[in-house]
């Protein structure tokens, strides 16, 4: 697999769209390309942020945050 092909597969990998048979070849190439591969995969994850940021933020209730913070503080004291 060339690095360009690996890049194509990496973009599919980060959104979980690699099929099982592709995943095996991808993991082999990932090892072969080493740190260069890891750096590229890390860059691909920026697409996750982009997809989330393409959405209009949704409103949550204040009670939800109060429950969350109460759980956190309870966990700290227990």
């Amino acid at each position, binding site marked *: 697999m060339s690095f360009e092909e690996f890049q194509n597969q990496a973009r599919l990998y980060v959104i979980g769209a690699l099929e099982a048979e592709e995943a095996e070849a991808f993991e082999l190439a990932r090892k072969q390309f080493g740190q260069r591969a890891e750096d590229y995969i890390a860059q691909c994850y920026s697409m996750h942020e982009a997809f989330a940021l*393409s959405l209009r933020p949704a409103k949550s209730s204040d009670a939800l945050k109060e429950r*969350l913070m109460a759980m956190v503080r309870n966990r700290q004291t227990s």
Partner: protein
Amino acid sequence: MAMDFLSKNGAQDDPVEAPATRMPASAPELEPGAPTDLELMHAIQKEDPEALSLLYDRYNGILKALILRVIHNEAEADDLLQEIFMEIWNQAKNFSAQKGKPLGWMVTLARRRAIDGLRKKQAYARAGERLQTETEQQPDAWVHNATEEEITFSDTRILVRRVINTLPVAQQQAINLAFFRGMSQREIAANTNTPLGTVKTRLELGLKKIYDGLKELRDEL
């Protein structure tokens, strides 16, 4: 067919204006003196609840929108949002800045939890049917009066959407089904009555354009 990435008016919904001088796909511009996301993560790693509170205020809207896009249920989305922030609190020690930014880590975590929840309900089996109706019936069901958070994010959203909207509708659909529904290529092919090879090509071309588009925007700024 209008796509899930888009609102009911499709690509024309948001004004297409000259991009603001703000980094796309990144955290919102912070008030002077406000802690960065990374500083908040480090504080959470030291078990500072106030840091989690600030991180929640900054990103609960984005993460809830993401969850809602996957599971389409307000009450379940709230429950999941609470669980996700608890997981952020509990798993913060596993976050490494060398592997990416805090928002990326949180989005990845939230997406995985939301898709797990969807699969547990087996609701994804009806995804094809929903896809046809939701853009007509409730494309922006969570739209509400603009909050300070929404205004802060709006420029970023416009920029990101500009990149996504350059894709043909079929590519947007394929990426949407993969990212927001957690579908495999075969599931996408079955749900859209499209040959598997075509789905693969659409995903590859679409993701490359998005990746390159985002990179180009970063490089310009």
